[in-house]
């Protein structure tokens, strides 16, 4: 066996865009190696999901089906995928650098006695030894490393947008039903309840206004909210308020609003950074914004070096005046 395997992820029964990107990546690597690419669908009652995955020109779709795999219980998913990999011995296993992937991949790699590289931006095959060359940002994106690892399967998690999404084809892949050898005893962690919260999806906004360490009071975020409302009203855009990591560390904002390497990576039309100095791990999250506006009291701060427009001013004076001008 020498095929390339990828883990399918879906939300509400619809394939994730990240999964479509993985399919493209897997097929490209398969072409270079002269082998096939297959996918694995994990869950309970996954027939429909397996069928959607089967319409992208993959060789096979493994359907790893078990009542314990309903929802996402990491212990069960890791156990089932370990079982599958031991059955099928893939040469390469691609997983999205997603909530699921970040949790499953390290544990799975350990159990399969191989090494994992997380958060890869690009992948290629070394023609000399057939190993995967993994390109990964380190030091928050201040450097880009290309590395190799021993062990099979060659395992990586892949950042979103690393590949173009795959397109559907007319022929269907074979779907193989697999009943993993797992039982209740595999669950070491018990889920008591899931509490839904209002989650802000910053990537849906045209404009994001973020506050950082320079915002001195929690209440001052109300100024940013007022600015968001004024911009939304005047410009007719979807405007949301985000923040950098120190703000979440202070528990002033929930982490769904955090922009950066460990928060959300976004590319809005306009990004307004208020009191953000421009630590690289924040820049990674917003540098692809079409236009960047920086507001800061320190003219030497890094945010001005990556911004299209800069205002050296105290937000406490500037923002209320700006709200007035926009509304006036």
């Amino acid at each position: 066996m020498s095929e390339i395997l990828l883990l399918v992820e879906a939300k509400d029964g619809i394939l994730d865009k990240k999964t479509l990107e993985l399919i493209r990546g897997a097929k490209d690597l398969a072409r270079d190696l002269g082998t096939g690419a297959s996918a694995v669908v994990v869950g309970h009652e996954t027939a429909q999901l397996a069928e959607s995955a089967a319409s992208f020109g993959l060789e096979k779709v493994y359907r790893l089906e078990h009542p314990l795999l309903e929802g996402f219980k990491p212990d069960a998913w890791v156990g089932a995928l370990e079982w599958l990999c031991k059955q099928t011995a893939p040469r390469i296993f691609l997983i999205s650098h997603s909530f699921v992937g970040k949790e499953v991949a390290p544990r799975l790699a350990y159990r399969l006695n191989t090494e994992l590289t997380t958060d890869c931006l690009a992948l290629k095959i070394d023609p000399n030894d057939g190993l995967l060359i993994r390109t990964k940002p380190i030091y928050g994106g201040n450097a880009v490393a290309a590395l190799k690892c021993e062990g099979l399967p060659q395992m990586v998690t892949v950042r979103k947008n690393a590949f173009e999404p795959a397109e559907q084809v007319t022929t269907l892949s074979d779907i193989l039903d697999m009943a993993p050898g797992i039982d209740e005893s595999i669950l070491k962690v018990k889920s008591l309840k899931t509490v839904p919260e209002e989650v802000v999806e910053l990537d849906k906004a045209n404009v994001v206004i973020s506050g950082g360490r320079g915002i001195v009071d929690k209440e001052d975020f109300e100024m940013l909210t007022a600015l968001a409302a004024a911009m939304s009203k005047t410009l007719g855009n979807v405007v949301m308020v985000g923040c950098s990591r120190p703000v979440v560390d202070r528990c002033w904002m929930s982490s769904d609003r955090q922009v950066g390497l460990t928060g959300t990576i976004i590319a809005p039309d306009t990004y307004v950074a208020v009191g953000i100095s421009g630590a690289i791990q924040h820049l990674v999250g917003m540098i692809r914004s079409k236009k960047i506006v920086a507001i800061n009291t320190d003219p030497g701060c890094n945010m001005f070096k990556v911004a299209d427009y800069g205002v050296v001013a105290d937000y406490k004076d500037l923002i209320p005046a700006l709200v007035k001008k926009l509304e006036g």
Partner: protein
Amino acid sequence: MKEPQIIVCAKQIPDPEAPFSNVSVNVEKKEVIVDAPDVISPYDENALEAAIRIKEELGGKITVLSMGRKVSDTVLRKTIAAGADALILLEDPLFQGLESNSVAYVLSCAIKKIGAYDLILTGRQAGDWDSGQVGLILAEMLGIPSISLARSVKINDGRVVVEKTVPVGYEVVEAGLPALVTVSNEVGELRYVARSKMLGLLRRPMPIPKWGLKDLGNNAERLKKVQLMELSPPTDMRRECFLIEGSSPEEQADKLASVLKELR
């Protein structure tokens, strides 16, 4: 229950909040050079904060483990000042540039040497390589349950109860002890340590054990380094910044409002 024994794994790294102009890449030597002081990796500080809160409630002992080629006890003593009880440095020239499995292996040897423990806390990922692997692998090696991305950690009736950040909100999960939990920044930042307390602590003699590979089973063959093929600088992020000037905030606001309207 008895008072919990908590181990916190804390990595010393160059300050990840350093401005990008202070970071450069030596392509030939395949090295990242950071012109900034070393700090404790921020998520590991969050893990320590979570540990201190448990100790405040239940008592017990917090041991901080830090591993590297050369670890500075001046950086790590902050953990004691904040509320940890003991600090053990895992130091050996062979510990430089190890891949995640090998790091987890060394930590697992140290934890077995410590002996009894109830809970291991690590940051969700280190702020240098951001791999997010060592904690989860460590739990696998020790054969204990693992829970990731905690935003709150409590011990209740001999079990660990965690609020874990999930895409739709949070999930409350629990596991028997011993267990390992990786901690995220939603827990809150490490409590403030007064500078005078830090300085006082630095002057006070304090036993800080240093364990090298020979103290930890001496199995050099088990250690593998990251196979770095190439290191390159990132693509240039700089843009031409147009500064909006004015004699008053109102004037600046007026000009900025026009810019924002144009950007629509």
